[in-house]
């Protein structure tokens, strides 16, 4: 995973943040300290009632902290005017919160208008934001929220939160109320938008899979906002800090980790290839000499066309057009090992063909390569466990 943060400069600093509600003897959030770097997507994940939403709402002071401090871009905002503060922090909630009596355009324009932008700039910004979230401005600007689907409404919610160009975006279970298909689309959409705008985002979810998929870092909340672990998805999955995190991450952690490895992290193996236009007899010689007993046929633009085995070439055809098993299982280097495994299990299991952005052949990734990588991950985790146990042992010995 590429490092998306710029030099780790914290955009948000939470220090000893505490919230006590009257009539409750235990604080809802207890002395929580956390930095979120500029441009980072930080996910708060944890079971309901762990204080993750309360913590989120203390950042824009919808919930006033009892004690502790919040710094935004180096400025202490614990006691500034909350209305002004909130115009600098985008806010997306699960129920979208779109005002039903305002058009989509007017909803998106709310914060820019509060900021006092001139109307021409507001209009341009509305269209820009709608385009950013994949909604045609001309078609959607003048419609009312209830005329849109749930997924479209949530996109408008994101567009509205970004409209005032805030450095920070808070998202409270933004995709919680959508169906699984829409949720996945919206998640991908968010990653795409984030790659474009690079905001500092704090997103709350109770879904560990969502956290793994979206987060640059994940903060796993335990009871009363105890931060059980803060780390990259790979760290949380591969080296859970304690049994609580391990339980919360749940079964299938190894499988989930495959989501985090891009195909280009695994060495693709070269594979004998031939052109569709080549002489069938020469290709047959190649097949016979190859280790796997097959050759990949490429077209003039080096795009994979078909797998050819010896059987396909007896009797020898006049030319190679239409010969062999169509090579459909192709992936680009941006795909994950999880995608690769999925494709392998869905086809004959021989392997997936790695292609570049133009569809040109780059290599083949087989089950062996994936397994080798998994073995490497395991070895790494074990080394860490051993190191941790050793550290623990020496600490106990000292005590």
């Amino acid at each position, binding site marked *: 995973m590429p490092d998306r943060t710029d030099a780790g400069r914290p955009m948000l600093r939470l220090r000893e943040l505490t919230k006590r509600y009257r009539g409750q003897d235990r604080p809802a959030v207890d002395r929580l300290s956390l930095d979120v770097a500029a441009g980072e997507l930080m996910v708060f994940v944890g079971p309901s009632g762990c204080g993750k939403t309360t913590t989120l709402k203390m950042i*824009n002071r*919808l919930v006033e902290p009892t004690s502790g401090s919040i710094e935004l871009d180096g400025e202490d905002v614990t006691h500034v005017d*909350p*209305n*002004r*503060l*909130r*115009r600098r922090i985008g*806010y997306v*909630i699960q*129920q*979208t*919160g*779109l*005002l*039903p*009596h*305002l*058009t989509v355009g007017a909803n998106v324009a*709310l*914060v820019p208008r*509060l900021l006092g932008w001139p109307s021409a700039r507001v209009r341009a910004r509305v269209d820009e934001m709608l385009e950013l979230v994949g909604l045609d401005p001309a078609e959607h600007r003048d419609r*009312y*929220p*209830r005329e849109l689907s749930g997924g479209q409404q949530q996109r408008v919610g994101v567009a*509205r939160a970004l409209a005032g160009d805030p450095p920070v975006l*808070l998202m409270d279970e933004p995709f919680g109320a959508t169906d699984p298909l829409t949720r996945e689309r919206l998640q991908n959409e968010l990653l795409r938008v984030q790659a474009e705008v690079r905001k500092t985002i704090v997103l709350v979810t109770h879904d560990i899979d969502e956290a793994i998929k979206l987060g640059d870092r994940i903060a796993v909340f335990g009871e009363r906002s105890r931060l059980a672990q803060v780390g990259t998805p790979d760290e949380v999955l591969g080296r859970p800090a304690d049994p609580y995190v391990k339980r919360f991450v749940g079964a299938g952690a190894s499988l989930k980790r495959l989501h985090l490895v891009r195909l280009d992290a695994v060495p693709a193996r070269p594979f004998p290839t031939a052109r569709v236009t080549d002489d069938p007899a020469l290709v047959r010689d190649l097949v016979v000499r190859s280790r796997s007993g097959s050759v990949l046929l490429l077209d003039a633009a080096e795009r994979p066309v078909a797998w050819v085995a010896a059987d396909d070439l007896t009797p020898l055809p006049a030319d190679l057009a239409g010969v062999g098993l169509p090579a459909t299982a192709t992936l680009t280097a941006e795909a994950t090992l999880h995608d690769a495994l999925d494709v392998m299990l869905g086809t004959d299991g021989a392997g997936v063909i790695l292609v570049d952005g133009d569809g040109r052949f780059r290599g083949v990734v087989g089950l062996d390569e994936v397994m080798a990588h998994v073995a490497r991950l395991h070895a790494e985790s074990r080394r860490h466990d051993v190191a941790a146990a050793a550290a623990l042992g020496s600490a106990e010995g000292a005590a």
Partner: protein
Amino acid sequence: MSGGGRGRWAGLAARPLVVALLLGGLWLWLRGQELDSIERRTINADYLLRATREHLWLTVVATLAVAALALPLGVLLTRPALRRVAPGVLAVLGVGQAVPAYGVMVLLTLRFGVGFRVAAVALVAYSLLPVLRNVVTGIGQVDPALVEAGRGMGMSRAAVLWRIELPLAVPVVLTGLRTAMVIGAGVATLATFVGAGGLGDIIINGIKLGRTPVLVTGSVLCACVALALDWAGAVAERALSPRGVS
């Protein structure tokens, strides 16, 4: 939705037609009657118009006063600080609602004498509670997520009230006002007992003198006033309700 909209407009267009038919029918029927001198003293254009005007004026003034009182009061009762006392306040006012309007008028007369103002105050007292209740309900039914979204975007409490809560409460508030106004148009006939005029004068005359044409004229005019006000209320609802909300 467009079909429903058309139906709503059709309903609005039908109302004035009914009023016109009622008035036309009344006129035709009166033309066929032999009116004696006593009846003619009441059933003449000048007198009928004056009584109708008084009646309308009383109803409209009372309704506007109710709106002017119920809206700020309802807003206050839905603010976080007072939200918890709202049910208590409504219950106390509910006691006033149970007292008959006629009783209120008579009691007020004992203290303030007779006239338009006493009648108006009685009408206001009578219809304040249902309207207030609708204002509280109307603002209360606004989705809390919308209020939170507004606050989260940096809108002040006042901005949230003016731009989110009140616009979304408009349909419920106007329905309450319209109902109160129509009931008020009926109750306003009692104004005759405190010397405030109106169509009640004609109806009571008809009863006291045993003159059916007078009684019928007063009653039909009263019904027409109520229908016309209801129609005006429906038009206002249609015009003022926010778009984008079903």
